[in-house]
C-alpha cells in the first residue's frame, strides 16, 4: 500500500468511497469507488489502473473535490500550515490549494470562447500573481516543449484536433509546477512522440518533488515513470499492486 | 407727509401691507426656517392677491410680510424702476402701506427685484427680495418632485453635474445663461432666480440678507448674510461671467456694469446701456469728470 521510500507522504487516502444518489432516478445509487486507500510521497508517481467503470476517475475527482466523497479521508500536507482532509475542507480552502498546489489535467480540454492558447496556459500563472508578460512568456516556453506549433498560439483552441487540445490542457497544468498533480488519461489522444515529451516533462516534475497520480487504461507508455500501481476493480475496492510493494 | 400717506393707506380699507397679520407671521416663520437652513426650499401657502401668479407674488408676499412704516422701498424689474411690473407692485405696496419709495439703491431698506441684483454694493441694513419663477435647480435634470426632494436630502447632485459636463463636452463651456446653480453654505444647491451670471458673484458673502420667493411654486428660500455662495464649476473649467467684448453703456460710459442690448431701428445697429437704471443715472449725474475717469 505504501511506497517503500522513506519520505513522509504528501497525500494519504483512507477508505475513500463515493456513491452517487440520483434523485432524478428515484434515489437510485451508483457506486463510484469503494474503500480506496493509498499513500503518496513527494516525487512519486502512482498509477490508477482498471477497467472502465471501476472508479479510477472518481478517485481523482474526489481528491480534487469535484466529487464530494461519501466517506473516507483524504489527508493532504500543504506547503504551509497543518495537514487538511480534502474531503471535508472548506471550499475556500480548496480553491486556494487548487490555485497554488494541486493541479488537475482533465481528459478533455474545456474550451473558453475567445481566449487564445497562450492565455489559456498563462491564466493559472496570472492567478498566482505573475504579471501578464512573464506569464505569457512562460506559457510560450511550455507550449514549445509540448510542440504546439507557434502559429496556433494566438488562436482560441476550439477548432484544434484532440491531440493538440490535450497538449494545451497539459501545458496549462504543468506550467504551474504543482506539488500534487492529478492526471486523467493524459496521453490518450497523443501520438508516441508527444507521449515521449510528456514523459520527459513529468520526469522533471517528479525530480523537483511533484507527487503525481495518473489514471491510465493502459499504463505501458508511462511505465518508466511509475513508482506504484493501484488496480481498481469494478464494484469493489482497490487492490494496490506493482513494483516493490503490496 | 408720511403720516398723511399712512392715513390714506388706512382709509383704503386694507390692512397694513394688504395681508392680515397672521398670514404675515406665518410667512415670516417660513422665512426664519429658510434663513436657518441656507439654500433649502421651504414650502409656504400663498395668499390670494390682486396680482396673478407668475407676476411676482412670491417676492411680493415676502415684502408685504416684512415691511414696516419706516421702511423705504425700491422695486425693480430687470434692473429698471420704470417697468410695468415694478410700477404695479410698487403701487400696490404703497397704497396699502403708505411707505416711502425710492429709486436710489443706497437709500432703500427693502429692495424687491425681478431678475437682477443692483450694481451698487448692498449693506447689512438692507434686505434684497428676489422674485423667483422656478425655485428648483434640479428641474433641468429631474421632473419628479419626489426625486428632487430626495436628491437634496441626500446631497445627490451628480445628475446636475453630469448636465454641466455634457455642456462642456458639447459646447466647450457651460451654456447656462441665467439661473446658474450655486451651492450655498457648502450644502444645498440653489437656483438664484433668473439673474444673469454677472450677478452671481455678488451673492457670495454678501452682508445683505437675500430672500427668495416663488408664489406660484409655493416655496421660499434664503441666503443669510456673509454666507458662502459658490457657482458649480469644475477645476479645469471655472465659472465665468458675461463678456461684453469691451462695449460700454451709451448713456454713462460704464464698462463695469451689466449691459442690455438695444436695437436701434433707425440706424439698424445695436447699442448697449446699463441694465441697472439707477446706477446709470447716478453715473450720469456724477458728471463728465467721472465719465472720463471710468475704466
Amino acid at each position, binding site marked *: 500500500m505504501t511506497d517503500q521510500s522513506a519520505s513522509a507522504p504528501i497525500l494519504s487516502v483512507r477508505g475513500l468511497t463515493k456513491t452517487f444518489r440520483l*434523485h432524478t432516478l428515484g434515489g437510485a445509487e451508483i457506486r463510484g469507488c469503494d474503500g480506496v486507500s493509498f499513500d503518496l510521497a513527494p516525487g512519486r508517481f502512482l498509477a490508477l489502473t482498471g477497467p472502465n467503470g471501476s472508479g479510477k476517475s472518481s478517485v481523482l475527482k474526489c481528491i480534487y473535490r469535484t466529487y464530494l466523497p461519501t466517506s473516507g479521508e483524504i489527508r493532504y500536507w500543504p506547503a504551509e500550515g497543518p495537514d487538511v482532509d480534502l474531503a471535508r475542507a472548506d471550499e475556500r480552502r480548496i480553491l486556494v490549494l487548487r490555485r497554488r498546489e494541486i493541479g488537475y489535467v482533465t481528459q478533455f480540454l474545456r474550451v473558453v470562447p475567445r481566449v487564445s492558447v497562450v492565455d489559456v496556459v498563462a491564466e493559472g500563472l496570472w492567478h498566482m500573481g505573475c504579471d501578464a508578460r512573464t506569464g505569457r512568456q512562460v506559457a510560450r516556453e511550455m507550449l514549445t516543449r509540448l510542440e504546439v506549433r507557434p502559429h496556433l498560439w494566438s488562436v482560441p483552441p476550439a477548432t484544434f484536433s484532440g491531440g493538440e487540445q490535450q497538449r494545451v490542457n497539459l501545458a496549462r497544468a504543468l506550467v504551474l509546477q504543482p506539488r500534487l498533480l492529478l492526471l486523467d488519461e493524459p496521453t490518450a489522444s497523443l501520438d508516441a512522440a508527444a507521449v515521449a515529451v510528456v514523459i520527459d516533462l513529468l520526469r522533471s516534475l517528479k525530480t523537483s518533488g511533484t507527487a503525481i497520480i495518473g489514471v491510465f487504461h493502459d499504463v505501458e507508455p508511462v511505465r518508466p515513470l511509475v513508482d506504484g500501481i493501484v488496480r481498481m476493480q469494478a464494484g469493489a475496492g482497490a487492490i494496490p499492486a506493482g513494483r516493490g510493494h503490496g | 407727509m408720511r403720516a398723511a400717506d399712512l392715513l390714506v393707506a388706512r382709509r383704503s380699507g386694507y390692512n397694513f401691507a394688504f395681508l392680515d397679520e397672521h398670514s404675515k407671521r406665518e410667512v415670516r416663520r417660513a422665512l426664519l426656517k429658510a434663513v436657518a437652513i441656507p439654500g433649502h426650499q421651504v414650502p409656504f401657502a400663498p395668499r390670494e392677491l390682486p396680482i396673478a401668479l407668475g407676476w411676482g407674488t412670491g417676492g411680493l408676499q415676502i415684502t408685504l410680510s416684512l415691511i414696516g412704516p419706516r421702511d423705504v422701498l425700491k422695486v425693480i424689474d430687470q434692473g429698471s424702476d420704470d417697468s410695468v411690473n415694478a410700477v404695479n407692485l410698487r403701487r400696490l405696496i404703497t397704497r396699502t402701506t403708505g411707505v416711502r419709495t425710492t429709486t436710489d439703491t443706497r437709500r432703500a431698506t427693502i429692495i424687491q427685484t425681478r431678475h437682477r441684483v443692483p450694481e451698487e454694493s448692498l449693506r447689512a441694513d438692507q434686505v434684497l427680495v428676489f422674485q423667483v419663477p422656478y425655485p428648483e435647480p434640479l428641474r433641468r435634470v429631474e421632473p419628479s418632485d419626489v426625486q428632487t426632494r430626495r436628491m437634496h436630502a*441626500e446631497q445627490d447632485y451628480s445628475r446636475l453635474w*453630469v448636465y454641466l459636463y455634457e455642456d462642456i463636452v458639447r459646447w466647450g463651456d457651460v451654456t447656462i445663461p441665467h439661473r446658474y446653480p450655486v451651492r450655498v453654505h457648502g450644502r444645498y444647491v440653489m437656483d438664484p432666480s433668473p439673474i444673469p451670471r454677472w450677478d452671481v458673484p455678488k451673492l457670495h458673502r454678501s452682508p445683505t440678507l437675500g430672500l427668495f420667493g416663488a408664489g406660484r411654486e409655493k416655496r421660499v428660500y434664503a441666503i443669510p448674510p456673509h454666507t458662502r455662495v459658490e457657482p458649480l464649476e*469644475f*477645476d*479645469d473649467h471655472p465659472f465665468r461671467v458675461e463678456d461684453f467684448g469691451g462695449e460700454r453703456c451709451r448713456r454713462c460710459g460704464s464698462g463695469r456694469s451689466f449691459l442690455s442690448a438695444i436695437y436701434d431701428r433707425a440706424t439698424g445697429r445695436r447699442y448697449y446701456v446699463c441694465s441697472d437704471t439707477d446706477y446709470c443715472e447716478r453715473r450720469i449725474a456724477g458728471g463728465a469728470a467721472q465719465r472720463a475717469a471710468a475704466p
Partner: protein
Amino acid sequence: MSIAPAPSAVPPAADAQPLLVLERLLKIYGEGCPDCVARTGPAAGTNVCPRCRSVVACGDLSLRLDPGEIFGIVGESGSGKSTLLRCLYFDETPTAGHAYLTPYEAGRVDVFAISPQRRRYVRHHLLGMVYQHPHLGLDLDTSAGGNIAEKMLMAGTRHVGRMRERARELLGRTEVPLDRMDEPPRRFSGGMQQRVQIAKTLANNPPLVLLDEVTTGQDVSVQARVLDLIRSLGRSLGLAMIAVSHDLGVIRLLAQRTAVMKNGRIVELGLTDQILEDPQHPYTQLLVSSQL
C-alpha cells in the same frame, strides 16, 4: 468618514477577513407573519406564505465572499437570486438581515442599518452593479463618457479632463470605440451598451461587482465577448464578483463557487465544478440534468 459603529456590530474574523459577509438576509413583500419563513421555501415548493399571502423572496440567506473571488448564484425565475443582488446594492430594503463589507468600517458595521447618505457612499465607492438591461444602469440619453463621469462625480471628482481620460481608459478596456465616447448609448447595439455599463461600473474601482443576468437575451457571440471581458477584468483588477444567472454555462465559465437557489433559499452551495458534476440536492440534479 469617521462614523461610530452601529449597535449590532460584529467583531472581525480571526483568520483572513472575507470581503463580504451576508447574514440571514430576509426579504418579504407584503405584511409578513410569524409563519412566513417556516411555511415557504423549496420543501413547501412555494414563495407565497399560505397564511398571510406575503411573498418571501429571500429567506434566511447567508454567505461569505473572499476578496477577488467570483461567486455564482444560479436558479430559475422566482428563486430570489436577483432580489438578493438588489438588496446588496440597496435597490431594495431588506426585511431583516445583516451585511458587512470589509472596506467599510473594517467590516464592523452592518451596511443594511446605516443612513441613506452612507448607503450612497457604499453604493458608489465599494459596489458596482451591472444590470441585465442596460437602461437600468445607464442613462441612455447621456453620452457614454458622461455616464462614466457621473460615477466619478458622485465620488467628488471635479476635473473634466481627468474624467474624460479615465472614461477613455475604461471604454478602451471594454472595447468600446473611443470615437463614440460622446454619443448617447441609445444609439449603440445591445452588446456595446452592456460594455458601457461595465465600464461605468468600474469607474470608482469598486472591490465588489454584482452581475445580474448580464448575458441573458444576447446573441451568443455577444455573450462570449461580454463574458470574456468580465473574466479578464476580474483577473486584472482583482475584483470580487457575484454573478447571477439561470444559465449554468455562464456560471461554469465565471464562478469558482456557486450557490443554487430555489424558492428564496440556498439549497446547495459549493465549488462550481462540484455543483455541476456531483450535485447533491434533488433540485440541483434536476437543474443540471435539464441543461441543454
